[in-house]
Structure formats: C-alpha cells, structure tokens
C-alpha cells in the first residue's frame, strides 16, 4: 500500500467528520439563533429613562449608544449603583463607583411640583421637560403630571420665577411594604462598618 493511500485513508474519515460537524454547527446556528437586541437597545432598557441628561448626553438613548461605543458606564446618578451593576453585568466588565462629577444618587425618588400661584405661564419648563410631563399654555398656569414626571429636575433651572420644587415621592398604604429584617449578627464585621457607619 502506498504512502499516499494511507494518508488518504486517514483523511477521509476526518473530512467526513469535519463535514458532519460543520453541518451540525450550521444547523445549530439557524435552529438556535438568539434574537439579540443590538447592545444599545439592551443598555437603553437598563437605564432609568429619566432623560435627565446628567450624564452629559441629551437623554438615556444617546447615553446608551455612547456606552455601546465605549463611554464609561458610571455616569448615571438616577440609576445609581444598581444600574451600574446591571450594565457591568451585561457588558461583562467590572462595575465602577458612580462618577460624582455627574451628580449623586437620590435616596428617595423625587417629583417636580409647580407652586401654581407663582407660575407666570412662560412655558419655559414645558419646553425643558424631556417627557412632556408638564401641561399648560402661554400666560396660563402650568402643572406637572406627577405620574409621568421622571424627577430629572431639568425644569427647575429654566423657571424665571423659581416656582418649581423637587419634592420626594411619599409612600402610601398602596406601595408600602415590610422592611427587610435587620439582624446585625447576620452581617459580617466588614459589612457592619459600612451599614452602621461605625466600626464594631
């Protein structure tokens, strides 16, 4: 038997195996195709949609696109640590602490409130609101649709008479729920320092 023949004999099964595996991979590619959102869409889903622009972009969508293009992930104060963690998880990068340059995370959600007797009806806040949550007309009193307000506070600055306050959203019986049980023993020593703020 010639050398060539032996080589051929060895090659045939390999070729068949390769073709089979290729076909299998090709099948899997079609059959189990993951309908993936483009990454910017997924990032946009994670961002809090306050449209506040504190990140330096004119809304959540532009920031999502910027992150997809390599922007830092820690510029969203309304989303805070949890949003950063979710983005880090999605992108498979290390979470970073919130960049204080862009603001700090609020403890409670805020909502804009117009002191209506002081409003002069200049419509400046209406133009500033990124989610159309302020209604009113020129020379008429304006008001905030509090359910639609994202608490971005973009309306506060343009108001010429400073009649807009950011007030915390109050808990009602409807959305109240039990606190998690607190048990200091369940915290390990290092955690306890951060929780109570005092070394044990």
């Amino acid at each position, binding site marked *: 038997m010639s050398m060539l023949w032996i080589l051929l004999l060895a090659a045939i099964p390999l070729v068949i195996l390769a073709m089979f595996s290729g076909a299998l991979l090709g099948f899997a590619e079609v059959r189990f195709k993951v309908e993936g959102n483009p990454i910017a869409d997924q990032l*946009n889903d994670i*961002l*809090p*949609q*306050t*449209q506040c622009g504190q990140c330096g972009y004119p*809304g*959540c*969508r532009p920031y999502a696109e910027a992150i997809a293009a390599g922007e830092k992930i820690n510029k969203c104060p309304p989303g805070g640590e949890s949003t950063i963690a979710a983005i880090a998880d999605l992108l498979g990068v290390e979470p970073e602490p919130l960049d204080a340059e862009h603001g700090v995370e609020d403890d409670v959600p805020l909502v804009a409130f117009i002191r209506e007797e002081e409003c002069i009806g200049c419509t400046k806040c209406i133009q500033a609101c*990124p*989610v*159309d*949550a302020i209604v009113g007309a020129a020379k008429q009193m304006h008001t905030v649709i509090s*359910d*639609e307000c*994202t608490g971005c506070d973009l309306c506060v600055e343009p108001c010429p008479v400073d009649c807009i306050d950011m007030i915390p959203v109050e*808990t*009602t*019986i409807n*959305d*109240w*729920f*039990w*606190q*998690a*049980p607190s*048990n200091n*023993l*369940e915290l390990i020593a290092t955690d306890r320092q951060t929780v109570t703020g005092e070394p044990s």
Partner: protein
Amino acid sequence: MNLTLHRFHGGIHPAQNKEQSTHQPIKSIPLPSQLILPVRQHSGTPAKPIVSVGDSVLKGQVIAEAVGHRSVPIHAPSSGVVSAIEDRTTSHPSGLPELCIIIDTDGLEQWCEHPNLFNKTDCQSLSDLPNEEILEHIQNSGIAGLGGAGFPTALKLYKTKHHTHTLIINGAECEPYITADDMLMRERADHVIQGAQILLHLSEAKRCLIAVEDNKPEAIRALHESLQVLKVNPAIQIVSIPTVYPSGGEKQLIKILTGEEVPTDGIPADIGVICQNVGTAAAVYRAVYFGEPLISRITTATGDAIKQPGNYEVLIGTPLPHFLEHTGYIAQQPERIIAGGSLMGFTLPELNVPLIKTSNCILAPTTSELPLNDLAMECIRCGQCVSACPQGLLPHQLYWFSKAQDHEKAEQHNIFDCIECGACSFVCPSHIPLVQYYRHTKGEIRTERLAQQKSEIARQRYENRNERLARIEAERAAAREARAKAKAEADALREKQEAEAAATASPDSQIEDLERKILAQQDRVTKAQKSHQAAQEANLDTADILFKAVEKQQTKLQQLEQELIALRNNVTQEN
C-alpha cells in the same frame, strides 16, 4: 352523601388558644363617643366620602360611596355628626395615615330608613328577583369579606364564564386565638345557614359546603340543629374537616373539599368554586332580611393582657382604646397589640386606630405567652419549612434568594405563590423571620416592576417628543425651502421682466431709475453706519458683523454709481 376529604401539602399544629375566649357569650360594648371610619376597609378602590363636616348622619346612612366594582360603600354605624374628614392612622401594619370620616355619636342610635330586600322590591321570595338586584342590594349594604381579606362580596358572585359547581362557606377558622366565627356559628347558626342559602341561590352552584374544623364541635352541632329546624335546601352540607393550620386558607380549603387547586394566576371561580366566610354569610342574611348594612361585626378580644377575653359585637369604627377599656386590657411593657391571630395577624403601630370591617381579632399577648423572637440564627437548611409549607414551596431557598436580593431566582421559585401563612417561620429552628423576608422581597419586586413600567412609559414619551420635535423641525425646513424656491422663482421672473423693460425702456427713464436706487442705497449705508457706531459705542460683539454690513452696502452703492456712469457715457456716445 359522603364527601371525600383531600389533604394539602404540609401544614402545622400550633397551640389553639381558642378556649379562653369562648367562655362567655357574644357581648356588646357601650357606644363609643366617636367613630373613626376609614374609606378603605376592603381590598380594592377606597370609597368616596359623600358627607361633609358638620352634616348630621343617621345610623345606617351611606357616608361614602363605592367607586367602581372593586369597592363597597361605607355606612354610618350610629347616628351623630360628622366632625372631621381627615387622615388618621388606621388598622394597617404600615401606620401610614389614610382618609377617615369621623362621627361624633349622639347616643340616639337613630336609624335611617332601611327596608329589607323584600319590602324594597315588593317580592315574596328570592326566586322572584333577578340576581342582579339581590347583588346590588348586597353591594349597597357595604359587605366585604369578613374573614380578613375584605374582598367585596358581591363581586365574587357576579356571573363569570365559568359555571360554579361548589359554594364553600368557610368556617374553618384555623388561626390560633380567633373565635369570632366559632361563636357566631354557635350562637347564630341560623343566620349562617340562611345566608348560605342566599349565597347558594346567587351562585347557582350544585352544592354548598359549610366547612368547620373539628376542634369546634359546638359550632358543628349548632349548625346541624339549625339545618334541621330551618329545613333548608338539601344541597347545603356541613363538613367537619381535620384541624390543621392553614386549612382555613381559601386555596387550602378548596383543596381539602374538592381536591382541586386554584391555578396560580387564577381565582377560585376559574375552577367553579366560590368561597365565602361564615361571617359574610350572616351579614348577607341580615342585609337581605333586615335591610341592615354592614355596620358592626364580631371581634374576638383575647390574649393574657386582656382580663375579659371573649367575643364582642362592635360597631365598625370603634376606636381601639374604647374597645380595650371595655375588655379589661392591662398595658404591657413593651406594648404589643396584634390585629388578627398569632400566625397571620399584624402588630398595630399605635393604639388609637379604629376597628374595621376586617378586624376579626384583637390579640394582646404578654411576653411570656408569645415570647418575642430571639435573635435569628443562620439557616441550616434543615428542611422543616419545606415539610410545613402548605403551598409546596421551598421556603429556605426563597429565604436565601431574598437575602441575596436575587429577585429573578425568587420569582422562579414561585415567591408570589407564598400566602404568608407563617408555617415556615413557626417551625424554623433558627427562628428566622422568613415571612418578613418574603414580604419585603415581594414588595421590592413589585416596586421594581412598577419602576420598569414607569421607565418604559418615560422612554416612549421621550421618543414621542423627539419625534414630534424632529417633525416640527422638518416641517419648518420644508416651509423654508418652499419659500426660498418661491423667492428664487419670483426673482428670476423679475430679473427677466427688468431685462425686458431695460431693453425697451428709454435710457432716460433708466437713469432716473438708477438715481432713485442710488439715493435709497445711500440711505441704507447711512443707517448701517449708524447702527455700527451704536454697537461700537456700546462695545457689543455684534459690532464686527455690523461693520461688514456697512462695507457690503457701500460696495453695492459703488456698483450702482458705476452703472450710472456707464449708462450716462452710453447716452453721450449715442447722442
């Protein structure tokens, strides 16, 4: 007819502690001087007050009306004057204030007109009336489930696409300490049976099962006797079920009696079952036969800190301090008052709250009776909770996920199927407040979902706005372009006309024309120079731009002057 009973998974056998409050018959307490009526005493939409401060109200008068179907009206439990409509702390674990109507009673107990259903409609029996009318009467009587959840009673009975085969009247009362239903069945068994008959008529079910745990033999005996005396519909049957907590839970009771399970995302009606509490049945009876709206209920007062434990018929809205005063309460240190039983009841955040339609028990324990939870130890995954859980959950895993805030896994392990019965915490050797963990996690998940919905709406509104702004901008741009085009066309036309005119016009008139233009241009130059000067003096940034404008106008002027010279030369040459 013998019924095969089924078993549900798990369950516990806590100490009953029911005996101490069954020694005395149901008593009433003196009329309180003030009644506090929260507008939300049921599950669903709060009622809307229809009285104002200062109004006199009669006993049984509607003071707040239902808002939609998931709501019931509220009636004045006694006659008096509305002294305030304001936020007060109510019987809720949060201690958050809610709108309440406060009535200063006048002690006259003067009823408003309250005809019973038959007088109102001139009918002799229920079968003469359409179901809708009976249901409306029940709805208008303000009846919501008296077992604890306070679900509007009539709402459960409206026809659905599922045919109801079984009506269950829940008299299991599995929760330790509470005896309100037990005493009701013992003393007013006929009310329960008659109420059951009305409910059976309305539900059009084939059978009605009145289920009572076998630790209440007196109640069962009374029901049987009453059944014989009243000679009611033979489809009504009294079923004694084994005593195991939480057999009185709606889902568990349905499993015991029918062997079927309520689908996780459904309601009992989906499997042809309707469940009503015995107290509710009695209230329905009183509403239909006596026209009495729901203005009072039976509340158990028990616990070692109460010296006269027993059951009391109280007016809805009775302030808790008044109730405690007349049941012999001795304040403990630390003070702890539980609304409900020892397994599912909640601690009241303060004393001055009213008793409401769902207040079945006030439990005031001493610390030796119900010791405060000692420090929780770590979960050792012993699995006692798995054996105890009546819902077939894995409580220890849920605890783990709750603690780790792993909401995804908690949901995957069906945390929303937890009925918060407390069986897991009861058996936990590590004394972990498991139920509180689940409540917290459920709340967090719900809040998260709401936030997600809200952010989705915000995203849409933001995108809509951007679209709108882009559209307006595009429209403006289009209009600008159209204008420019029109102008260009007009200019072209004019130039053409001018050229034609120039060709035909006499040179003299052309010269005159140019001279006029030059004068006008000189005017423009002067104006431009003036505004430039003004800007310069005011040191404005626009000065540079204005200077350029001046130059431009001067160039134009020179052009015109040269044209004029050229024209004049032409004329001279021609001549």
